[in-house]
């Protein structure tokens, strides 16, 4: 019994190690979680055209920023805001940030009759609205934009006790789509997704665009490939792709 | 009133089957080699074990009847039970132990004095001697004003001197009791000293022959003697 386990372990090691090595061939990109869907298509397209593999890690911008600060070996960082890439540039860890997408905030609900109201403000003021989810404005760029909109519309105070703070825009959508809350201030990309189509949403014009910036990390060992990818992200082809997912 | 016991139970090494009665004010002593089923019988009277068949009746109260599916739980039988290894509650003082289930708290003082442990009333069980603990256990049982009193080798774990004096105190007390007492021991002298009636139990059955065989140290036909080492007595049962 012990012998066969040892043999298995060695086999596994032998098989996995070259796989790992192969995996290390491509670009490692840290991507803000809201951009998952769009990024997958962008990465696949880039790979097809150039043969350069792209591997992404998706998480909240704050979490990725902490990792990078702690020395995580990424080549590029696609944040959901401009602030974090700028910080990295200031601390000398990254080059000049560039805007790779602009997102929009929507008010999405899993219940189709939610959108019977005139506009998003009317919908929120209705009776029977018990809980609204939004990404925590202190830590999530989409949350900050949503808060700006609520304040502008005079709803921030009114809705106060009904607001549930999600950790990021992905969790916001999770709360809204599982109907744990009546509606959520989510990303437009969520509204355009498969799940998103099962519900309905209002555009929230009072919310500013979420300017999502990226940067190439100084310690990358694949500068040339990273720059090619950055160039691709800014190309008209990439723009067409991301517009499909609700980004400009 | 009479305690009537007639029970049967399948045990690990043999089948238990006994029948006996005990009147108020009488002390019936069960004696016999260890492992013979005496403790099991007493536990069945208390309700801690269930016979497979039979009846246990006290007066007009049916405590157990297999055919009628009656099996009163121990707390409803109002029995006093003094265990072999004293099981006083370790977190309570002797007084509190004795008064634990007392019908009238005033009885407790009298009992403690009668058994000579009143001066120890505030001590916890681990701070007194084995003999004092057993005295307290007896007080605890008596304070409940039980209908039947059961004592299962109450003094076996004590030294000879204490055993003797407790035995004498018990006999002196006996006449004042108004209920039946069932007493278990393996000590023939103790049995002879205390009993109004002796019931020898061997391998689950009443064996009236056992006494005679044991006292005259005659091996039973086909069995090895497992009797207590007692000096030859001229008394014949």
């Amino acid at each position, binding site marked *: 019994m012990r012998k066969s386990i040892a043999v298995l372990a060695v086999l596994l090691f032998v098989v996995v190690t070259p796989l790992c090595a192969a995996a290390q061939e491509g670009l490692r990109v840290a991507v803000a979680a809201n951009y998952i869907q769009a990024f997958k298509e962008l990465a696949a397209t880039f790979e097809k055209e150039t043969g350069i593999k792209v591997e992404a890690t998706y998480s*909240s911008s*704050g*979490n990725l*920023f*902490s990792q990078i600060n702690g020395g995580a070996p990424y080549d590029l960082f696609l944040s959901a805001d401009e602030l*974090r890439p700028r*910080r990295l540039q200031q601390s000398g860890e990254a080059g000049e940030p560039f805007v790779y997408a602009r997102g929009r905030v929507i008010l999405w609900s899993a219940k189709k009759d939610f959108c019977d109201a005139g506009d998003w403000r009317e919908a929120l003021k209705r009776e029977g609205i*018990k*809980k609204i*989810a939004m990404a*925590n404005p*202190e*830590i999530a760029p989409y949350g900050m934009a949503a808060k700006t909109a609520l304040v502008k519309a005079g709803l921030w105070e009114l809705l106060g006790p009904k*607001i*549930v*703070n*999600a*950790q990021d825009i992905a*969790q916001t959508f999770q*709360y809204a789509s*599982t*109907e*744990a*809350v009546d509606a959520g201030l989510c990303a437009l990309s969520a509204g355009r997704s498969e799940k998103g189509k099962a519900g309905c949403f209002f555009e929230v014009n009072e919310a500013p665009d979420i300017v999502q910036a990226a940067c190439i990390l100084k310690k990358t060992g694949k500068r040339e490939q990273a720059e090619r990818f950055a160039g691709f992200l800014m190309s008209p082809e990439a723009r067409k792709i991301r517009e499909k997912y609700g980004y400009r | 009133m009479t305690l009537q016991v007639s029970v049967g139970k399948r045990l690990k090494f043999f089948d238990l089957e006994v029948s006996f009665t005990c009147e108020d004010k009488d002390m019936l002593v069960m004696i016999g080699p260890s492992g013979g089923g005496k403790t099991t019988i007493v536990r069945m009277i*208390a*309700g*801690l074990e269930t016979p497979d068949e039979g009846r246990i009746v006290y007066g007009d109260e049916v405590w157990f009847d297999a055919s009628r599916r009656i099996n009163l*739980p*121990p*707390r409803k*039988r*109002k*029995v*006093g*039970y003094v*265990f072999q*290894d004293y*099981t006083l*509650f*370790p*977190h309570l003082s002797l007084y509190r132990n004795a008064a*634990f*289930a007392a019908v009238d708290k005033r009885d407790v003082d009298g009992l403690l004095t009668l058994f000579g442990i009143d001066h120890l009333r505030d001590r916890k069980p681990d701070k007194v001697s084995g003999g004092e603990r057993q005295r307290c256990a007896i007080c*605890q049982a008596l304070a*409940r004003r039980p209908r039947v009193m059961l004592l299962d080798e109450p003094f076996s774990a004590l030294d000879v001197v204490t055993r003797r004096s407790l035995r004498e105190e018990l006999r002196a007390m006996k006449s004042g009791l108004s209920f039946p007492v069932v007493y278990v021991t393996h000590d023939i002298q103790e049995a002879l000293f205390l009993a109004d009636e002796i019931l020898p139990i061997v391998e689950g059955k009443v064996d009236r022959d056992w006494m005679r065989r044991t006292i005259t140290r005659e091996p039973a036909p086909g069995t090895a003697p497992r009797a207590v080492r007692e000096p030859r007595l001229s008394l014949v049962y």
Partner: protein
Amino acid sequence: MEWQAFYVTLKLAATATAVLMVVAAPIACVLAYARFPGKSLVEALLYLPMALPPTVLGFYFIMVLGPRGIAGRPWETLTGQPLLFTFTGIALASVLYSVPFAIQPMKAAFRKIDRRLLESASVLGLSPAAAFVRVVLPNSIGGIIAAAVLVFLHTIGAFGVLIMVGGSIPGVTKVASIAIYEAVEAMDYRAAHLMSLCFLPISYVFLLIANKLGEES
């Protein structure tokens, strides 16, 4: 530096501990003494929260406590208030999440009690409930306190479950562990550091108590 978050943490831990002491004791008692078919299945089910990752638990709690859940829906009908994203909701989640930590030490303490004490209590006329209160509890204080300490420590450290079930509402469901996480996300490392430091004395004191009790028993 959010003092409010610590207040919520301590309030939550105190609530969960108090509730579990009352709820877990009879369950531990049954597990310690009773024998019934399917007992090991029931026991494994009760210990499940210990074996599941907190995010899995959180996920299921959302389903159960949400407005359409088997617990959330009747609650909302009865009280008009939602169960999820409220203090009651996270208290309930914390209780369920810590059930095994309360039951195990109690069960162990109960089992240590000599059976004959219970038989004696029974013969002396006590009902099982009375025997539990007058004989079992006084003789298992060590195990009960150990359970309380464990539950308390476990609750003040809860994060994964609460981050899914709480909604991080300041003063209501935003506990200290979440406040620290958010401070890091917001790049306020100084606040994160300060709050983390505060955890040390609290946890240390309780561990000391737990150790002392462990030695005494």
